[in-house]
């Protein structure tokens, strides 16, 4: 009896000790021990940031992401730096000296050898089993690719090695395309292997749907290349826009660059001349003069302008016509682009009124296009104008504009007097394809509808017989437009150089314009007139674009033609999601 009591007591005592220890571990030290345990089997992993995709208006991919290998080295594990550097240099094609410097930094544990390798190089490095191969490791990184190469490169932009935007919509929509980073908690076992967490480790940005059409962009770029090649020009720009909505259908600049090779991009090639280059528009500015003259009724119908002398004196300075004209009607002054006639109209208007109409057309202001680094342009205020300013402004000098501003002004004439807000992004969609934002047309009244209608007719005369831009005429459709030939001002010498900006801006068809477009060629050799250099480029683009868009001819009824074929539009439902 005594022994059994003793035994029971001893056993009970042991159980009590065990229970007390359990209590200590599970209740008193619970928090500390639980944290220690978590540190051993849990870790925070950075989410992989993926930029959103960029599509054209028909769902074709313009910017995508690939997963590529980047190779790093742990210098603290390198036994023979020179040998390792030699092998790595041969395999990656990088400078031996640079790599030797990195692998010799013994105190570091991580140095990049080369980032974002191509498939072949990565394969060779992974297969390398030579000396110090255990010091080499790989990290998967996202690489931005532009599958269409140089197409629309200025508009799309590009990113640097760290996928940070540098130009174009990549830059202006950075907040939509790239989400802020985050971390995810993952579990790992004793060997460090990550167990399934069931969550997506990629954090995708939103997708962009642009207003441009790959087909129209290709047509514009090809015609611009042909024009530049023919006239051995220094630079060129084409912008095509829907005049009713402000949607940019194509935007081409030369010189251009390949966004897939950001390291080899030259600054002058990256320049988006359509919105950054300022120039004196020359005769294309006569749209403003004509609009002001019509709305202000500064002359009665039937007024004729004597341009027989071929020159006019204003403020002690002489202004000339390129060709001698006779006595011209108001419409003919524009059709034949007579400087003498234009200055006579300008003198009747006065600088203040002409200035106010220039402001109505948006000159001297940003267009607000959703691209970075847009130039505002310059328009001399009336109080700063001097003796010859009214004459100069009447013929498009003493004012600096961008091609985008000029196109926008002509779009107002095309659509009944409303100034559109140009934009290059149509929609923002979530990674799953859900519509988040849709950009609606934004229009401001600049002219009366009847003024716009009259301007359309006058500008149509420019491309007909007797006009300065017969080479812009499109077979089957009437074109309204204006040529511009302006000397280039050199700010270094403060004089006009021998180079010219040759331009043509217009819209077609006249009655229901489908496209408004501007072509600007800088430094053409062999010819300088806008009607000779830029107008044929306009025609080539318009004809091919209308074939692509299936736009019917204006003379269908007259020639008993029947329109065959569907409307221009999306033939299949595009997919906007990343999968």
């Amino acid at each position, binding site marked *: 009896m005594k022994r059994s009591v003793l035994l029971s007591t001893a056993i009970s005592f042991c159980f009590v000790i065990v229970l007390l220890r359990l209590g200590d571990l599970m209740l008193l030290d619970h928090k500390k021990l639980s944290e220690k345990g978590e540190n051993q089997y849990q870790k925070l992993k950075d989410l992989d940031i993926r930029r959103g995709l960029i599509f054209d208006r028909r769902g074709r991919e313009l910017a995508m992401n690939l*997963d590529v290998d980047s190779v790093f080295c742990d210098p603290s594990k390198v036994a023979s730096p020179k040998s390792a550097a030699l092998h790595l240099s041969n395999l990656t094609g990088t400078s031996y000296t640079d790599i030797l410097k990195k692998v010799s930094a013994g105190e570091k544990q991580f140095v990049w050898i080369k980032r974002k390798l191509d498939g072949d190089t990565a394969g060779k490095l992974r297969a390398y089993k030579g000396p110090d191969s255990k010091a080499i490791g790989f990290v998967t990184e996202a690489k931005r690719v532009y*599958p*269409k*190469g140089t197409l629309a490169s200025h508009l799309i932009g590009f990113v640097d090695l760290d996928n940070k935007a540098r130009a174009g919509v990549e830059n202006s929509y950075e907040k939509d395309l790239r989400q802020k980073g985050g971390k995810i908690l993952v579990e790992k076992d004793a060997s460090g292997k990550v167990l*399934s967490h069931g969550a997506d480790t990629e954090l995708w940005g939103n997708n962009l749907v642009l207003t441009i059409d790959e087909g129209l962009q290709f047509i514009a770029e090809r015609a611009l290349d042909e024009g530049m090649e023919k006239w051995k020009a220094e630079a060129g720009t084409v912008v095509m826009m829907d005049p009713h909505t402000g949607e940019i259908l194509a935007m081409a600049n030369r010189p251009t660059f390949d966004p897939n090779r950001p390291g080899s991009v030259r600054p002058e090639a990256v320049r988006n001349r359509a919105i950054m280059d300022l120039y004196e528009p020359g005769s294309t500015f006569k749209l403003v003069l004509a609009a002001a003259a019509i709305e202000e009724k500064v002359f009665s119908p039937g007024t004729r302008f004597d341009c027989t002398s071929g020159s006019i004196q204003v403020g002690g300075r002489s202004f000339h016509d390129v060709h001698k004209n006779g006595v011209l009607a108001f419409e003919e002054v524009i059709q034949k682009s007579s400087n003498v006639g234009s200055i006579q109209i300008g003198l009747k208007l006065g600088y203040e009124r002409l200035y106010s109409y220039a402001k109505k057309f948006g000159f001297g202001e940003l267009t607000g296009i959703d691209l970075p680094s847009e130039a505002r342009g310059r328009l001399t205020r009336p109080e700063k104008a001097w003796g010859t300013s009214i004459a100069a402004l009447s013929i498009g000098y003493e004012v600096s504009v961008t091609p985008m501003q000029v196109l926008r002004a002509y779009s107002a004439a095309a659509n009944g007097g409303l100034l559109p807000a140009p934009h290059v992004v149509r929609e923002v969609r979530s990674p799953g394809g859900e519509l988040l934002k849709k950009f609606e047309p934004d229009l401001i009244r600049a002219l009366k509808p009847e003024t716009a209608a009259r301007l359309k007719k006058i500008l149509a005369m420019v491309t007909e017989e007797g006009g300065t831009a017969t080479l812009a005429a499109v077979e*089957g459709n009437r074109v309204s437009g204006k040529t511009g030939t302006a000397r280039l001002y050199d700010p270094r010498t403060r004089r006009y150089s021998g180079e010219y900006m040759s331009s043509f801006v217009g819209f077609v068809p006249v009655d229901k314009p489908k496209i408004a477009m501007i072509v600007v060629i800088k430094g053409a050799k062999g010819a300088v007139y806008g009607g000779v250099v830029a107008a044929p480029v306009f025609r080539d683009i318009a004809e091919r674009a209308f074939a692509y868009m299936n736009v019917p*001819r204006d003379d269908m009824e007259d020639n*008993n033609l*029947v329109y065959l074929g569907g409307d221009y539009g999306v033939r299949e439902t595009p997919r906007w999601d990343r999968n």
Partner: protein
Amino acid sequence: MRAGMRDSMLSYTLKIVVCCILVSGIFGIVSLRAEIRHVEYELGALQWELGGVLRERKDIMAERAALLSIHTVGQRAEGSLGLEFPDRSKVFYVKRDVGDIPYEASFRQK
């Protein structure tokens, strides 16, 4: 006395059953946890495989987009296939008052 013996046997049996339930319960929990771990490992391996497949898919999609670029298609069409850009001046001429069917259609106006 018989009742006492019966009670004692019942109590003994009950204790054994309870112990068995407890022990099997503990083993069951341990087994389930091991099973969950095993599934997590398998899912981890599948996720790794999925990552590889998705990476390959991205490569293919990018290659497809590049091959379908209008520049590439245009070069092939105009180059080796001898195709031309559509000429919109070529349309069917169809008379307005067609008369009896069947209709005739032609690229050339009669």
